[in-house]
């Protein structure tokens, strides 16, 4: 298993190949990408920033939890930081497992825990030139 915070474009195919194995019956890939519209606003790009050492530590902890809980070490996760344009991948999660249900369960566990716990922030750029830090805990206006 491997996880990293990186500042270059992500390569989903490489992560899928990294976890593949002839002892696996199923592999899953999750790719999070910059979406054109969020909360009704026209997004043109996103700055991702991280508290580097803690983000790497927390990612590694979550991956180890998933490995223990779902029974596979064949997990690779990369989170990108920096300025991303529309359609670019901010996170890639690859999981390979003997059994498909466990591969999918691990995939979901990983993305949900990463969203909750890894110290990464994003500032969206909007078409009107404004920028805003995204706060998932904020009450919708």
């Amino acid at each position, binding site marked *: 298993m491997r996880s990293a915070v990186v500042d270059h474009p992500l390569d989903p195919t490489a992560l899928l190949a990294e976890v593949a194995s002839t002892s696996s019956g199923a592999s899953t890939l999750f790719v999070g990408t910059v979406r054109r519209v969020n909360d009704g606003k026209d997004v043109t790009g996103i700055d991702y920033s991280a*508290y580097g050492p*803690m983000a790497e530590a927390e990612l590694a902890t979550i991956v180890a939890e998933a490995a223990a809980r779902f029974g596979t070490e064949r997990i690779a996760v990369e989170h990108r930081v920096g300025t991303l344009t529309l359609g670019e991948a901010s*996170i890639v999660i690859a999981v390979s497992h003997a059994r498909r249900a466990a591969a999918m369960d691990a995939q979901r566990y990983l993305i949900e825990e990463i*969203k909750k716990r890894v*110290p990464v*922030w994003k500032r969206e750029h909007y078409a009107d030139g404004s920028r805003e830090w995204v706060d998932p805990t*904020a009450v919708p206006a």
Partner: protein
Amino acid sequence: MELDVLLFASWAEALGAQQVRLSLPSEPRVADVLAAAEARAGGRPLPRPLVAVNHRYAKPDTPVRAGDEVALIPPVAGG
């Protein structure tokens, strides 16, 4: 004691710095860090952060010692 605390995202932007020096009572706990940070924010509308001590989330009653790496963690939005 005086403690340097790391800032990120909306907090770093609002305070115009990657870290701030806070004055804390002796034998401070995480709750004291939060209180001093909120005082420093001075009423700016910032989201309530968590506190990390040495790269791990810490509870309000966790003690903070000189040499610890302490950071304010605004609501995360990765993935």
